[in-house]
């Protein structure tokens, strides 16, 4: 083009860098992601030692997963909500309400539990959509709408259950939470199916990891130094194989784990690789600019909340199945655990920032601490204090990192 003649290409002088410089700047940029993974490892190692190895015992690992499944399921939806620049305080109440609804339909009305489950998910989505409607189209702050929702559904739970606990559920329904993958190979004391599944997951993960690294290389993406790439994948693969093995020697993969893993994979993919995910981040980053780019920001926010409602309903089913009863107290304060997990995982209150994997790790950090401290017999009072401080430290770390950049 003709402007070539005007002046030399404006290249920015790169700062002096060797491989050491490159990895140093890489760490600085990705401090948060590695920091949180490291934090989880350190916390696990700590409790593994102080509980004399109980933490990672197969039975406890199974427990850990079952205990945290509903927080993780809701954290997936909450991450989208928070990335889009909003918050949902109603999820704990919605969880309780849906559990109550399921109990009434299945236990009192004798409805087929699969049908009831589908209805419950739909109800959750409608609840989320209703809240999303006011937030997206009427621009009422999500804090207020969902605070109202929190009160409304807490009250409705009480009303539906008439203040009583309702249970127990039929065996089939309980299996959502207390069931395990079938032992098709029939080896005593070892669930080979789970083990094989775990190995396949690791293999697939490594395959895709390597493939994308290879592609990025060939197109000259600036990407992570080899040491980090292999280190990260090695730790992750080793962890998954170990957990798989441990679970296989107990009763195999809980059904919930399979559901959860699938959801994590799907939501990770949506957020990182699809146009919808990209739009959600853009809305949280700058709503006006996103709207002027031809993106229907209202509809996006609306669906984010509908999705959150559906996931809260799923978590409600899982929770009710696990307790085998629906109680008026179910879900009390869960929204705080979920929101804390997402923020520990590196999401920003202002929107536009955060990852699914971060939120999941954040949820595990909270879960491991709950579990470890309970094993140690630390009182609920101290537990709250410690969890609160961890949340604060995580966010301070974020802010510190951001200011230093």
């Amino acid at each position, binding site marked *: 083009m003709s402007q070539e003649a005007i002046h030399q290409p404006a290249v920015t*002088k790169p700062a002096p860098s060797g491989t050491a410089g490159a990895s140093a700047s890489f760490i600085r940029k990705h401090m948060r992601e590695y920091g949180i993974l490291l934090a989880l490892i350190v916390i696990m190692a700590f409790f593994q030692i102080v509980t004399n190895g109980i933490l990672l015992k197969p039975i406890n690992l199974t427990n850990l997963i079952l205990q945290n499944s509903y927080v993780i399921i809701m954290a997936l939806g909450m991450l989208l909500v928070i990335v889009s620049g909003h918050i949902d305080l109603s999820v704990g109440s919605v969880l309780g309400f849906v559990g109550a609804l399921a109990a009434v339909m299945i236990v009192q009305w004798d409805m087929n539990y699969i049908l009831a489950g589908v209805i419950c998910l739909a109800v959750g989505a409608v609840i989320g959509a209703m809240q999303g409607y006011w937030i997206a189209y009427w621009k009422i702050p999500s804090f207020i709408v969902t605070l109202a929702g929190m009160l409304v559904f807490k009250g409705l739970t009480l009303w539906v259950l008439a203040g009583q606990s309702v249970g127990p559920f039929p065996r089939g329904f309980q299996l959502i939470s207390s069931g395990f993958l079938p032992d098709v190979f029939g080896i005593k004391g070892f669930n080979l199916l789970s083990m094989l599944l775990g190995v396949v997951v690791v293999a697939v993960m490594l395959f895709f990891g390597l493939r994308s690294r290879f592609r990025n290389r060939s197109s000259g993406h600036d990407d992570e130094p080899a040491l980090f790439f292999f280190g990260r994948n090695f730790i992750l693969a080793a962890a998954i194989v170990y957990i798989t093995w441990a679970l296989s020697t107990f009763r195999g993969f809980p059904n919930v784990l399979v559901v959860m893993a699938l959801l994590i994979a799907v939501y990770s993919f949506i957020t990182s690789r699809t146009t919808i995910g990209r739009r959600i*981040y853009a809305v949280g980053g700058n709503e006006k600019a996103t709207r002027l780019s*031809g993106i229907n920001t209202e509809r996006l926010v609306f669906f984010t909340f509908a999705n959150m409602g559906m996931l809260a309903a799923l978590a409600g089913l899982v929770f009710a199945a696990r307790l085998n009863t629906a109680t008026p107290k179910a879900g009390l304060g869960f929204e705080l655990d979920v929101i804390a997990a997402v923020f520990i995982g590196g999401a920003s209150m202002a929107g536009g920032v955060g990852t699914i994997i971060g939120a999941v790790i954040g949820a595990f950090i909270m879960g491991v601490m709950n579990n470890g401290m309970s094993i140690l017999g630390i009182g609920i009072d101290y537990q709250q204090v410690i969890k609160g401080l961890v949340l604060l430290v995580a966010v301070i770390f974020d802010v510190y990192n951001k200011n230093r950049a």
Partner: protein
Amino acid sequence: MTTILQMQGITKTFPGVIALDDVNLTVAEGEIHALVGENGAGKSTLMKVLSGVYPHGSYDGVIEFRGEECRFSGIADSEKRGIIIIHQELALVPLLSIAENIFLGNERAAGGVIDWHETFSRTRDLLAKVGLKESPQTRVTELGLGKQQLVEIAKALSKEVKLLILDEPTSSLNETDSEALLNLLLEFKAAGISSILISHKLNEISKVADTITVLRDGAAVSTLDAKGSHVGEADIIRDMVGRSLNDRYPPREPKIGETIFEVKNWTAHHPQHSERKVCDDVSFHVKAGEVVGIAGLMGAGRTELAMSLFGRSYGTNISGTVEMHGRPVDVSTVNRAISAGICYATEDRKTFGLVLDDTIRRNIPLANLGGIADGIVIDENRELAVARDYRERIRIKCSSTAQEVVNLSGGNQQKVVLAKWLFAGPEVLILDEPTRGIDVGAKYEIYAIIAELARTGKAIVVISSEMPELLGVTDRIYVMNEGRFVGEMPTKEASQEKIMSLIIRSGHRN
């Protein structure tokens, strides 16, 4: 003349970028010192080092102010010494009054209780000094940009100012407001206040500056004495871009075809005062390969017209029709406007143009995500290729396309906005102040892009407050005033005087 400020060997790096490389700057007492350079040359960074935004220790080098070495740890420190900076982006609290803004953080108070009487009377004095007649209780949102800029200056004056730094103060002002501001600087100079002025408008610089320092790629390449002898703009440009620039506008042979875009009887009302028309029965058309300008003063309703056309992004009670190739099209949402082939690049890149905390790579395809995706799955390699292509083509200066746009210099942010709309592949591109805050070299590049688009048969609308720019790049000019189109002429027959007189005459009529 004594030296008031000496900056020596200033070096400042960001991860992957050397923004300043051993820069020396000397400012004499009571002078107006201009700082010029291309986008990303390091002007704003140098001033942030000086004012303590980047504290001592985060850069190398020595700052000496009024004979003492300074190690500022924050803005408050430098303000205490009398160095006041007015940033490229205004920093007023819109919902507070002028008086509250001026004394924010510096309240006239006794024991924590604000003395409103003193606050207002001092504000009135300060406003008089900068030539504003507004009441101190006026809220800042109610002021135009030019007046807000003056409030910023009044705020600076409320502190003991010895050295006033203005980073592109006139980039969003019209000519009268700019003129007033420059005269104010001359008055301050007479009162002994030194100032550093950053601007891309070289005519202003040669008018008021005593000394000009040129930065290029993070280094001070020359210091020109502009006092007695008149330094030509050509000299400044030569030092800025490293070679001389003969033409300000690329040569072009317009090949004008059929009418592509036609707007008929477009009327839009103000969103709050619904009885007020911001666009009143506007009709215009643009042909294939044609560049059409819309001239007018700030507040004439040009941006409002463009935004209301672009998916009703502004205004209420909108009526009128839009036709593409002679057929009416639906432009009622942004998405539909884009699908119809109409794109609008905003004048306000921070608010409406960019997701600031996101990377260049992710900002560019935002208006055309389909262009980098298979179905709904984004192909990151294609995304990267697109970003690199635009980086190359319009010379976005950055350390990598993974750099966050918030860290780009203002001019380069503007280029990212342009890249975004070029990638959306419009047939009609409406550019609102496309060269605001952009250096002369980059302006030429943007004009060349406009010319190239026109050559390929696109229809271009340029909204600009810089009349020389309109005269330089367009084929035909519409003149807008108070929401109405008050004149139209081929650019060949147009002149600044003609346009101004149309505006003034139409203003007298009512």
